[in-house]
């Protein structure tokens, strides 16, 4: 039985000159789990929103679209965007209370959902006090309460750390397997659910470039950058999970060790944090509990850690936006106010950086406020390759575009230290790699970059130095090769595949070298 049938669908936003979707033809069977992949701006969100008639964007639509099952649930990319209440209880009850059913039935539906998804302990909590993972869970429950036959999810893992994302992925899989719900999930990352889904749809510039089973999709050239690490390591074979990757590696002849890459030596210290202690209230828990770190000129340091462990707070303290109650931060050996070394911070929500209606106006406004020539605005956009985005509203930019324009806005104040909060959040693998290369260019020019991220592959690929932040402390600050070579559970997928079999391997190129093949580089 078909749940979704789409034939020759075209869609163009009212304000756009080119179509967002062109000639889309696809069919999704009832109970299927389908992954919709593609780069930022390829039309994934538009297609999902068109499947839910109440949230359809405004524009010119042609072609056929039939949704055979009446109850469709949609989870937006940012759960906060979908919240309409203050507390978890109100949020869960909102849909059933507006569905023309009796109060007793409303209570039964809510009680079932609360019990099945185990959110009883969250019920009276304000939505604003929830962690990222809890917000996703509540958002899912507020949709699942109506027991939808089709569930549409828009990048549910983009804001979650690996551990929370894994547990959310298993929850989605359970919804599909146990309730028979048809699930269409738009996602950049193939780390979760790729191996478990029934089909992979790949959108490229608004066109459907591939509609294949996951194992066949692994061999499709357009999907190469989007594949799980296991599939990228073994040319000619298609392992999709860490387990399959380990079995494959075990079966193939391989070197027992790859040489550990030599780490560059940095000398000039630009930023020193010494025994920082920070808490939001006197009686509250210490978010920073004796944090110390050193950042050098030309160095890119990545601090990884779970959601809510205090990474952003550390960055805010380092940027001088919060004051620790003990310890000190020195910029080039001096306190912030006396130092000539400038630091700038890219926040997690990059749209917070924009005060004006277009990107170029915002750059000009910031330059004027900082007493700098406004002509630098166009130069910066040119440098980042974003000149075509100059006249766009910051809220209309895609994730990758917003991240780049935000980076440009931060760079306008000529910082020697760049502090970045989750710079790859919501980016597709291609944009993420582009950001990484750009940051390395800045380091080569003498800038020091500190990023906090839970994107371990990004940290492994582009950082000179890595650290794990846990319990308010930096637990291991060391060169990236040593950091990942020594890591166990909290590591890249390649490291987990190669554990005990290929020493020092933590990137696909390492495993390819161990297998004697050519690397992607």
């Amino acid at each position: 039985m078909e749940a979704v049938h789409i034939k020759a669908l075209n869609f163009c936003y009212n304000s756009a000159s080119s179509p967002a979707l062109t000639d889309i033809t696809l069919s999704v069977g009832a109970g299927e789990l389908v992954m919709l992949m593609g780069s930022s701006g390829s039309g994934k969100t538009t297609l999902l929103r068109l499947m839910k008639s109440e949230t359809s964007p405004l524009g010119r639509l042609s072609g056929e679209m039939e949704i055979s099952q009446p109850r469709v649930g949609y989870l937006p990319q940012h759960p906060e965007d979908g919240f309409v209440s203050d507390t978890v209880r109100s949020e869960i009850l909102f849909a059933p209370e507006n569905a023309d059913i009796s109060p007793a039935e409303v209570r039964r539906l809510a009680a079932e959902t609360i019990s099945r998804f185990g959110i009883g302990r969250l019920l009276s909590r304000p939505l604003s006090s929830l962690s990222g993972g809890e917000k996703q869970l509540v958002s899912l429950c507020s949709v699942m309460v109506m027991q939808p036959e089709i569930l549409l999810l828009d990048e549910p893992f983009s804001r979650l750390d690996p551990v929370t994302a894994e547990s959310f992925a298993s929850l989605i899989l359970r919804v599909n397997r146990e309730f028979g719900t048809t699930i269409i999930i738009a996602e950049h990352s193939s780390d979760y659910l790729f191996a478990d889904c029934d089909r992979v749809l790949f959108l490229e510039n608004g066109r459907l470039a591939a509609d294949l089973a996951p194992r066949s999709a692994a061999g499709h050239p357009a999907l190469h950058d989007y594949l799980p690490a296991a599939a990228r390591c073994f040319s000619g074979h298609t392992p999709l999970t860490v387990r399959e990757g380990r079995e494959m590696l075990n079966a193939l002849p391989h070197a027992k060790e790859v040489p550990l890459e030599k780490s560059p030596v940095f000398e000039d210290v630009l930023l020193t944090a010494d025994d920082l202690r920070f808490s939001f209230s006197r009686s509250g828990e210490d978010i920073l509990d004796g944090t110390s770190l050193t950042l050098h000129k030309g160095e890119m340091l990545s601090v990884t850690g779970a959601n809510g462990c205090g990474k952003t707070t550390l960055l805010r303290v380092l940027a001088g936006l919060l004051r620790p109650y003990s310890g000190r931060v020195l910029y080039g050996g001096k306190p912030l106010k006396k130092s000539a070394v400038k630091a700038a911070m890219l926040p997690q929500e990059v749209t917070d950086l924009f005060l004006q209606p277009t990107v170029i106006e915002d750059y000009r406004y910031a330059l004027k406020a900082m007493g700098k020539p406004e002509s630098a605005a166009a130069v910066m956009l040119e440098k980042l390759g974003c000149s075509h985005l100059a006249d766009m509203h910051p809220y209309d930019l895609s994730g990758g575009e917003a991240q780049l324009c935000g980076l440009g806005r931060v760079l306008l104040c000529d910082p020697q230290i760049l502090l970045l909060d989750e710079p790859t959040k919501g980016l597709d693998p291609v944009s993420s790699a582009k950001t990484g290369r750009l940051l390395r260019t800045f380091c080569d020019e003498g800038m020091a970059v500190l990023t906090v991220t839970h994107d371990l592959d990004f940290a492994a690929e582009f950082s000179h130095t890595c650290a794990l932040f846990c319990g308010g402390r930096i637990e291991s600050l060391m060169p990236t090769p040593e950091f990942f070579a020594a890591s166990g559970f909290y590591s890249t997928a390649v490291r987990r595949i190669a554990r005990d079999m290929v020493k020092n391997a933590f990137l696909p190129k390492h495993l390819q070298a161990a297998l004697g093949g050519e690397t992607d580089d």
Partner: protein
Amino acid sequence: MRTLHPLTRLAAVTALLLILMFCRSLTAAAAGLLGGLLCLLLHSGVRSFAKALGGCLCLAAVTAITDPLVSHRGMTVLLFVNSRAYTLESMLYGLQLGLSLGGVTIWLTLARRLLNDRELLSLFGRISPKLALTVSMTLGFIPRLIKKQRRIHEAQRGAGLFADNSPTTLMQEHSAVFGACIAWSAEAAADAARSMNGRGYGKHPSVRSDSRPLARRDMLLILAELCITAAAMVFTVLGGSTQFYPTLTFGRSEPHLTAACVCACLPPVITLAKETLQWKLYTSKH
């Protein structure tokens, strides 16, 4: 006061708000304020009580000191400011105004703490579901807007703005942040509307699933609060107001009005005191 029906809680708070807003009595205003502070102490603890007390005293002091600067009526001249009389009566009138304002603020604070958004929705949803939802969403939206304003401000500081301390620059920057907040509000409102549509809002009449029935005790308390409020209004008409000019004279019915105000405070104070005792005596100690 969770043992009482939300309507009873609302009735208790509304009675006090009406008395404080419509009765111009120094003693009734003081009684209403003290009752509110006592409720706050019992409900939220010493810290909230001390904060509210400090705020109310400051407010009363400000109105008492500033009122004689604009109103020069009264017989007891304390001093002259710019050749104009600064009178004791005008000061007392300002004090009464401050006490009333402080009392109203405290009872409004209590209303927000005693009634959550679900209960407010369930109470006002019967009269106008759309209005109730708008009020509830607005109440929830204000803290989000404040949080967003702080976040944008911090993002700008982190990206080089707000470094200049000149008042004009700061004002320009703050107005730009405010403009960005308004733009975000419009986006957030559109997202909320889309989400509401997506979840079936507006297709059918809304129901309130967690409404609870009125118990006999609740009905009696609501009736008592209604009677007390009506009596207070009657006492006000019969001379319950304090006369400040030309000299301070307490109204003929002012003791009755004050007694009515104290009576209106009693149900919430007794209920909260009983609950506090219950929590101290009956709950298991670990």
